[in-house]
Each structure stands twice: as C-alpha cells, then as structure tokens.
C-alpha cells in the first residue's frame, strides 16, 4: 500500500489509501451502502457527509462521492433529511405572496448564512431565500439552479427553513410563469398534429436499408 491516511468513521479509526473519495474509503474499510449513495457522481445529493478535522472547530459538509479523504477526518453521513414538502399547484403560485403562503417560515430567515456555509455545491443559499423575500423570483431561481437537494441546509438552519424544497418551488414558478413560452415549439406541435410529417415518416419506415443510408448521407451534405 502506498501512502495512507487515518479517518474516523463515526468515531472508529481506520487507515485507508490516500486519494480515495470518502465514499470509496468507506467501502474500502468494509461498508456496503444501502442509503448514502445514489449517483456516485455529484448529482443526486444522497451522500451528504458532515465532518470535522483534527484540531479545527468547524463543522464541514461535503458529498462523499466528490470529496477526497484527508488525514484526521471525523466522518458521518446523513442518510435522510426529515422535511415537510407541502403540496401545491404550480399554476396557482405566481409571486412572493403565494410562495409565502406555501412556505411562511422563510420570513423567519435570520441572515445567519449557515445554509450558505454548509452547501456542498457552494451555492449562495441564503441569498436565494433573501431574493424570494424581496420578490426577485428570477434571481432566486438562477442562484439555486445547481441545487442537488441534499438537504444539509435544512438540517442546519436555525429558522427551520427547508431551502431545497422552497427553491424547487421557486424554480418551477420561474420556469412556468416568468420564462416565455417557445413559439417555435408550439408551431411544430401544431404541424405534427395536423399530420404534416406522418406520411413522410411512414414512407421512410418502409424503405430498404440502402435507401435510408443514401438519405442519411444526403442530409449531411
């Protein structure tokens, strides 16, 4: 074995090769994931891990599948985030007032910024909530776009806000009511409904392979 580092999984010490992700290090020492692993690539938010480091008071968080182990890490994974997800009808939600009816608790934001500091995606989470409060739906939607909904913000918020759910709603509101609808799309759908392409495609479906190959080359010229 080359160089190794010492990690502490829920307090128990293990020695693992350096350069592994936290996820692979846990597997290396014998854990088999049921919870705590989804995409294994930084897209699903299943693997949130909180940790402290030797001699450092800070509580860090990261994605186990995207964070390299360091010597002296005290690790625990958060398997599940309890969070209420209210039901709503997006077509009825258009502005801050509507959003506040679904998530009144966002008005409790203390601007402590703990959410931002805990975000493994490095998003400006508090600014998302603050933007909503002042009615800037666009900014809130854009700032939160890269959210993978791991929920760690919601575990740490003293105002008990569930940022990742709130942001989901805001993005849908933005996508539905603020982004303009595509005219080109509508036009094409109408053409299809009128059967404009049906016949041509049915014809292609019956063509022998050589004929199709010829057409395929032709459209590439």
């Amino acid at each position, binding site marked *: 074995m080359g160089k190794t580092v010492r990690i502490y999984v829920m307090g128990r010490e293990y020695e693992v090769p350096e350069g592994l992700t936290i996820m692979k290090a846990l597997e290396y020492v014998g854990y088999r994931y049921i919870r705590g692993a989804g995409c294994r690539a930084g897209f*699903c938010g299943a693997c949130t891990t909180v940790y402290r480091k030797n001699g450092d008071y800070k509580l860090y968080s990261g994605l186990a599948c995207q964070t390299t182990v360091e010597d002296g890490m005290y690790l625990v994974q958060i398997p599940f985030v309890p969070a209420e997800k209210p039901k709503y009808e997006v077509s009825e939600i258009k502005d801050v007032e509507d959003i506040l009816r679904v998530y009144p608790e966002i008005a409790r934001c203390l601007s402590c910024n703990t959410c931002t500091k805990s975000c493994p995606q490095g998003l400006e989470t508090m600014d998302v909530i603050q933007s909503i409060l002042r009615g800037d739906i666009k900014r809130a939607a854009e700032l939160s776009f890269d959210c993978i909904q791991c929920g760690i913000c919601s575990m740490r918020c003293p105002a008990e806000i569930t940022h990742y759910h709130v942001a989901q709603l805001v993005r849908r509101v933005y996508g*539905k009511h603020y982004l303009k609808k595509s005219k080109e*799309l509508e036009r094409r759908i109408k053409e299809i409904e009128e059967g404009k392409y049906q016949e041509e495609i049915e014809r292609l479906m019956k063509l022998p392979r050589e004929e199709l190959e010829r057409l395929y080359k032709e459209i590439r010229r």
Partner: protein
Amino acid sequence: MSYPEEMRKSIEKVEETRDERLGLEINRMSLEEREEILKKFHPDYRPEAKREIGIGPNKGDLAPNEVVDLLESYPIVDPEEVDLSQVDYDVSLLIIGGGGAGTVAALWAHYSGLPVEEILISTKLRHGDSNSIMAQGGIQAADKPDDSPVLHYLDVMGGGHFANKPELVRELVLNAPSILKWHEDLGVMYDKDEDGNMLTLPGGGTCRNRLHSAKDYTGMEIMRVIRDEARNLGIEVLEFSPAVELLTDNGRVTGALLWNMETNQYYVIRAKAVILATGGFGRLHIQGYPTTNHYGATADGLVMAYRVGARLRDMDSVQYHPTGAAYPEQIVGLLVTEKVRGLGAQPVNREGEAFVHPLEPRDVEAAAIIRECYERRLGIETPTGMVGVWLDTPMIEEIHGKGTIESKLSAMYRMYSRFGIDMTQDPILVFPTLHYQNGGVEIDEKARVLGESGVIDGLFAAGEVTGGVHGKNRLMGNSLLDYNVFGKIAGESAAKYCKSNGKGRLTLDHVIRYMEALKKMGVPENRKSPLILPDYRGKKVLMRTLDLF
C-alpha cells in the same frame, strides 16, 4: 491535485497548437471509415467479451458475458419460501423503478384517469436516484424551423446503424416537441432566448442543432421537476424496496415481489398492470470498464422480464461514452458530457494533435480515442497507469468567450474544481467509459412488452430497460427523450389496460419453470440474480467477513 510534471509537458504542446487548431476543420469519417474503425477498435467487437445466451427466448443470441451470467442465474428468492397469499399492497398499477421513465409513467397514468391511490412506485434507492438525474448534456426534439421530425428520424436510424425498430423511432420523434411543451408547462427551466425559444446545440450524429439543455444539469432539472409534481399529486413511492421478481398468472403479469433492503422483509404486490422502468446496466462493468451510471444500474429489469418470457433485442451492443474522466483517480469513469465537445473542445493527443472530429457518433468517437491510445500509442499516461487523451476545454472560452464554462458547464467545472483542476485554463483527460445499455426488453409502439408469442399481458416497459428505439447505438439526447416519450405511452397504455382488466392470481410458476431449465443446463446453483447492488467492499475486509446475523 493539479497535473503532475509529466502530464504538464504534454499540456504545453496542447497549448502550442491551440491557435492553429481553432481554425482547423476536421473531416468527418465516411460510413465506410466508420465501419472499419469500429470493427478494429470498439470494445463491442472483441469476440471474447460476449457469448451466446443459453436459455429463454433469446437462446443463441450474443450478449456481453456479464449479462449472460445474470440471465443464466437462479433467483435470489426461493419460490418455496415466500407466502404469496398475503397481499401487502393491492393497486391497479405497479411501476418498478423510480427514475425518469417510472415517474413520467406514473404522471401520465394519472392524467389518463387512474386515481393516485391506485398507483404505486417501487424503487431501489431514493425516488430520483437514477441515471435520469445524472444526464447533463440535453434532450433532443426537432422544433427549430430548419429542423424536422423527418430529419430527426433519419439521424436516429443512422446513429443506430439502421437496426432500430422503425415504429418506435416514429413515436420518439413525433412526440418529442409535445414532451418539451409539457416540461415547459411544468416549469422546467430550459435554456432559452429572450423570446422564449429554445437554445439548441449540435450533438454527436445530429444533422441540425437539436440538443436542448438546462445548463449542464438537464437530467437533474427534468427529474426534480417531475418528481416534485409526483409528490404534489401524492403518488406513493416505496424507496429502498426493489422488485426482485415479477408475479404471474398463466403468463400474464399480475404483480411483483418487493424486498425492503433495510429490514429484509418482502412485500407482495398485486396489480392489474406492471410497468418496468428499471433503467440500464452500467454497474455490471462490462469488460471491466468504469461507468457513468448510478449505483443501482444493475439490469434487474432485464432479468425479471426475461424470466417471464420477454424477448430482448440488440443486447450485443453496448454504449461506451467516448469521454469519461480519466484523471484524477477519484472521478475515473464519470461522465464528461458531450456538450463539452458540442461547445468546441477538441480531442487532442499527447503531441497536441487533433485526431478525430469532435462530434462523430459516440461509438466512432470512442473507437478513435481507443485507437489513439492503444494502436498509435499517443495517449497520455496518468500516475496510476490510466491512459487517455486530452479534451481541450480552454478552446471553449476562446470560441464562445470568457465565463462560458462556468455558466454553461457548471457541473463539469465544479467537479474538476473540487479536485484542483481548472478546466478553463487546462485541458482535461478522458477515456471511454461504460455509459448506456443500447438494447433491452423488446416493446411495441404501445410500450407493451413482447414475448415469443406476442404481447405479454399486463407488462409494459419504458426507458433504458427497453431495446429497439436506438438500434445499436444511441445518440446523445435521445434517451432523456426516450424515457419521457415511452414513459408517457406506457402510463397511458397501462391505465387503459387497467380499465378493462381485473386482477389475477399471484404465482411464481414462471420462476419455477425457469429454474428447471437452469438445472437442465447445469448452471451452478450459487449463481444468483438480480444483482440489486454492486459490491465495492475492500477485498481484504471481505476475506475476513463473518455473516453472523
């Protein structure tokens, strides 16, 4: 963890040739050249990697060894050990797989008149933990004035080497625009211009700019919106409860057996119809390749369906994505989206030479990279012995301006930054990675699963678990489309089926018969499937494991 000295030297060459390459138009290969490079270098053409299936409807057909191993396996549940008389969930529609196809199917089954209480989703991990959430690049639809569903049709067929099932391709391309419209109405934040029209990019093998995206989180954006909608409607999802076997009544599918991975309890589900939406098989690591796929992509659906007599097709071809990360070690195999090439980054060898058009169809592009590394030996070696070629990402900002990478490829940029590599300044190292299950369970245009003697009653399938839509090679952006179009069709068809059919008996008779056939073949009894999850535990630990309780 920036680049070590040796790799730096090659990067300098890449930098030297960059200006010259910016103006360079690289020729695309002719169909003949493509055939040739595929035969010589594509992993699919290595005869020792495949063998004939020895059992079931596809007996005699070739498939990767890893797949055949699973098909020629005993069930993980002993039919004698389960009590099917006590039903735990009694619903009209059971959907197996809570990824993209499963969620879309649930929504459309409901839109088609099934009450939400009559729909149940079983899934292996959490709702949405799937390949669908990982898609970055985009989704195809011919909505631009210079494009048409006819051109889209031809591209899909050509990309699939004309082996596709034509009626499925027709459904795919004709339904594409209305799927995007549905997304728009749900509030998916597609990249748009000021008038609301979609921004499109070229994709490998497309003759028009047809790729629609939501930054490079397209799959995540679509998945989280449809999941939110399913949650709003109150559709029940049993998480960490994969299906391990289908249940049948005289050949008709009537339910499934689920297994709670946390408590080990099994659940008996009775349903009028079952939709299979279990996705692909990347985690089988075909030929030892690393994969881009999520943790649960283990071909369970293929195995379960095959045991009830479903036919498989195009299982001999596997998609290797040309650009998986090859450095640093922590992210080896993870996807570097095709959009990186779509935006202008060229594959470049050790000497700084461009050697292939950046947007050949995937199999061709992958073969060209393998040739560069292993025949021409112009790849770059990493400290752990991986070999790859450069993808010259700084070109993107030369072409589209500063800031493009951070805004359009923020997922990629973030991934590399986490490991100390700034892809706006330095190229990234790539090598093909196992990406997509081209073939799968055969369906008809109503998403009904086909067996040896036609439709298998009560069983529908959609998404990556199916075969036929993409022939022998899927083009980028067509599988997000696939799971939406066929998820929708499956939901509608199954809802309709539920209206005119009752419930059936619950048996594992088909499994018992399958086991008899396995016995005749002499398959070793310790070979079991479905796999459910891969096992990545360290070897040293496994050697000293006691299974005590």
